[in-house]
C-alpha cells in the first residue's frame, strides 16, 4: 500500500471529478496550443506565399530582362546624341543628321562614369549620290563600339567595319546581285562587300556602312562625327529621357539627345510596371501575412489568458468539491497517522495526473484544431518543445489550482471531523 495507489484508486472511484478536471485543463492547453499552432501556421503560410510571390517576381524580372535584351538587340541603338548645331526638325525630315561634333566627344563620354547609357557608337552619316550607280544612298561610317572605362568589356552590338570593306542594305545589294566578297566602287573608292543585310523596311535598306575614317575622308569630315549612338539602360527611372539628358549634359554640354523606338520601349515600360506590380503584390502579400499573424496573436492574447483563468477557477472549484467530499476520509487518514504532507501529496498527486492527462489531451486537441485551420501543413507544425511545455505547464496549473483546497484539507482537524460523524 502506498500513496500513489491511494491516488489512483480515488481517481477510479470519483472518475467524473477526474474527467471534469481533465476537461478543464485540456481546454486551457488546447487554446494555448491551437493559438500557437495557428500563429506558426500563419507564419509558414505567409512565408510560402511570399516565397511564391518572390519566385513570380524573379521570373517576371528574368522575363523582363530577356525581353529588354531581345527588344534592344532588335532595335539596335535607341539613344542618339546629336551635335549642338543639329537642326532636329531637319533631322526628322531628312532622316540623317547634318550637324557635326568632335570625334573626341565619344571618348569623353566613354571615360565618364555615366551609367544610364552604354554601347557607345560614333558615326558619320550623310545622304550622298552614288555616282557610279546614280542612286541616292546614306553613307554611314562607323568605327565600332567604344569601350566604357568604368564598365566590364561587353560584346559589341555592332562589329567594326574594317577599312576597304562595306556593308550594304537590301536595296543596294539586291538589285545588283551583290554578295559578300563582291567588289564595287563607291564614288571612286573600291570596296569589297563584307555583309549584305536582309530587308528591314527602313532607311537601313539604302544605307552603306564603311569604316569611320574612310567615311570621314569621303565626306570631308576628318575627326568629326554626326552622332553618337547609344543604348539606354533599363536601370533608368520612369522619366528616362530627362535623366539621360541630364547625365549626358554634364559630360557633353550643348549636345542634343533623342530617343528612338518608343513603341518597343513602351513594352519595356509595361514590363517594368508589371515587375513593379509584382513587387507591390509581394509587399502586399508580406503585409497581409503579417496582418493575419498579428490578428491571430491578438486573438490568442485574449483567448489564452481567459482559458487559463477559467480553467484555473474550474479546477479550484472541483478541488474544493473533492476536498469536501473527502473530509471524512482525510479525517480518518489523519487519525490513523497520515501527516499533513502526505495528505497534500494525496491531492497534489491527483492534480499532477490531471495535468499530465489534460496536457496530453489538450495538446492533441489543440494541435488538431490548429492544423485543421491550416490545411495540409500538418506535420511541419508539430513542435516537441510545445508538447513538453504543455506537459509541464498543465500539471503546474492543475497543482497550483489544487494547492489551496489541498492545504485546507490537509490542515483540517481530524478531531473535529471525527466528532462531526
Amino acid at each position: 500500500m502506498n500513496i500513489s495507489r491511494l491516488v489512483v484508486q480515488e481517481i477510479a472511484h470519483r472518475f467524473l471529478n477526474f474527467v471534469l478536471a481533465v476537461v478543464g485543463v485540456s481546454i486551457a492547453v488546447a487554446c494555448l496550443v491551437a493559438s500557437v499552432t495557428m500563429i506558426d501556421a500563419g507564419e509558414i503560410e505567409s512565408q510560402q506565399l511570399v516565397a511564391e510571390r518572390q519566385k513570380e517576381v524573379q521570373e517576371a524580372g528574368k522575363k523582363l530582362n530577356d525581353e529588354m535584351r531581345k527588344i534592344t538587340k532588335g532595335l539596335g541603338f535607341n539613344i542618339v546624341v546629336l551635335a549642338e548645331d543639329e537642326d532636329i526638325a531637319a533631322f526628322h525630315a531628312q532622316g540623317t543628321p547634318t550637324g557635326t561634333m568632335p570625334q573626341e566627344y565619344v571618348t569623353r563620354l566613354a571615360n565618364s562614369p555615366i551609367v544610364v547609357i552604354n554601347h557607345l557608337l560614333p558615326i558619320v552619316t550623310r545622304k550622298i549620290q552614288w555616282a557610279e550607280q546614280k542612286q541616292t544612298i546614306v553613307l554611314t561610317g562607323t568605327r565600332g563600339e567604344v569601350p566604357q572605362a568604368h564598365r566590364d568589356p561587353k560584346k559589341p552590338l555592332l562589329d567594326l567595319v574594317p577599312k576597304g570593306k562595306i556593308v550594304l542594305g537590301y536595296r543596294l545589294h539586291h538589285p545588283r546581285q551583290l554578295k559578300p566578297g563582291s567588289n564595287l566602287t563607291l564614288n571612286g573608292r573600291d570596296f569589297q562587300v563584307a555583309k549584305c543585310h536582309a530587308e528591314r523596311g527602313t532607311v537601313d535598306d539604302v544605307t552603306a556602312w564603311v569604316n569611320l575614317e574612310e567615311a570621314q575622308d569621303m565626306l570631308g569630315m576628318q575627326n568629326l562625327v554626326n552622332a553618337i549612338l547609344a543604348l539606354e539602360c533599363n536601370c533608368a527611372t520612369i522619366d528616362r529621357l530627362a535623366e539621360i539628358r541630364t547625365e549626358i549634359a554634364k559630360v557633353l554640354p550643348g549636345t542634343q539627345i533623342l530617343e528612338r523606338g518608343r513603341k518597343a520601349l513602351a513594352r519595356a515600360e509595361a514590363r517594368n510596371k508589371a515587375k513593379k506590380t509584382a513587387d507591390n503584390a509581394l509587399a502586399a502579400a508580406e503585409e497581409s501575412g503579417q496582418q493575419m499573424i498579428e490578428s491571430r496573436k491578438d486573438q490568442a492574447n485574449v483567448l489564452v489568458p481567459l482559458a487559463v483563468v477559467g480553467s484555473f477557477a474550474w479546477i479550484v472549484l472541483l478541488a474544493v468539491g473533492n476536498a469536501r467530499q473527502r473530509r471524512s476520509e482525510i479525517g480518518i487518514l489523519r487519525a490513523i497517522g497520515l501527516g499533513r504532507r502526505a495528505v497534500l501529496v494525496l491531492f497534489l498527486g491527483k492534480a499532477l495526473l490531471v495535468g499530465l492527462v489534460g496536457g496530453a489531451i489538450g495538446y492533441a486537441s489543440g494541435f488538431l484544431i490548429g492544423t485543421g485551420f491550416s490545411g495540409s501543413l500538418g506535420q511541419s507544425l508539430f513542435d516537441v518543445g510545445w508538447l513538453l511545455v504543455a506537459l509541464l505547464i498543465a500539471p503546474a496549473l492543475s497543482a497550483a489550482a489544487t494547492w489551496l483546497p489541498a492545504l485546507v484539507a490537509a490542515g483540517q482537524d481530524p478531531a473535529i471531523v471525527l466528532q462531526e460523524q
Partner: protein
Amino acid sequence: MLISLKHITKSYNTHANNVVAVDDVGVSVDSGEFVAVVGPSGCGKTTLLLVAGGLLSPDSGEVTVDGIDPYSLSSEQRARFRAEHIGFVFQQFHLIPYLNVLDNVLAPALVTGDTNARQRAGRLVERFGLSDRLKHRPGQLSTGERQRVALARALLNQPKVILADEPTGNLDGDNSAEVLKELQTFAEQGGAVLLVTHDPDAVAFANRQVVLANGQLQTTPP
C-alpha cells in the same frame, strides 16, 4: 500505565458561550486492561477519547500514552506516534470508500511503510472471517463486516492501545459481541482498551467502567 489521563479539562468556544466538555477528569488504563467510559450522549466521552488519542489537545491536564506525552510532539511526529501506538475504532467505521477490504486494512501501513504489513493484514482478514471479501469495497459489505475491517485496520500496526468510540453502535447483538470479544482478547494479550459507549451490554466485556456526566467523572476508578 499505557494510558494516563490526569486532570484533563477541555472546553469548546461557541458563538454563545464556553462549553466545558471535560472537566478535570482522570483515567488510567494499564496493560491488559479494558476500560469502558460510559455516560449519556454529550457527556464528554468522545472528547476524552480524542484527547487520549493525541487528536485533541486538552486545555489542561497531563496525557501520556505508553509513557509519551503525544502533545509534546510536532504534528507530523504525533501522527506517526498514533500510527505506531494507537488503534482507532469508530461507530461509523470510517473506512476509505474506494479501497477494497485488504487495502483498507493496510491503510495504516501508508505511514509506517512496514514491509510485513501485507502478511499481517492477510492474517487479520482471515481471523476476522473476511477472506472471501478481500476485493470488496466497504459499500459492498454488511455493517458487521465493515466494523471487522475497521478492527483489523486498528490492529495492523500492532498497537499497544485501542481507542474505541461506540464501536457497536451500528451493530446487531452478534456482531457487537464479536467486536467486543476481539477487544477483550486484545486486552488479555497485554494491550490497553479504552472503550467509549452508552451500551450497557458492552460494559460487561470491560474490566471496569468510568462514568461521565456533564464532563465530570462520576465514579472514581478503583
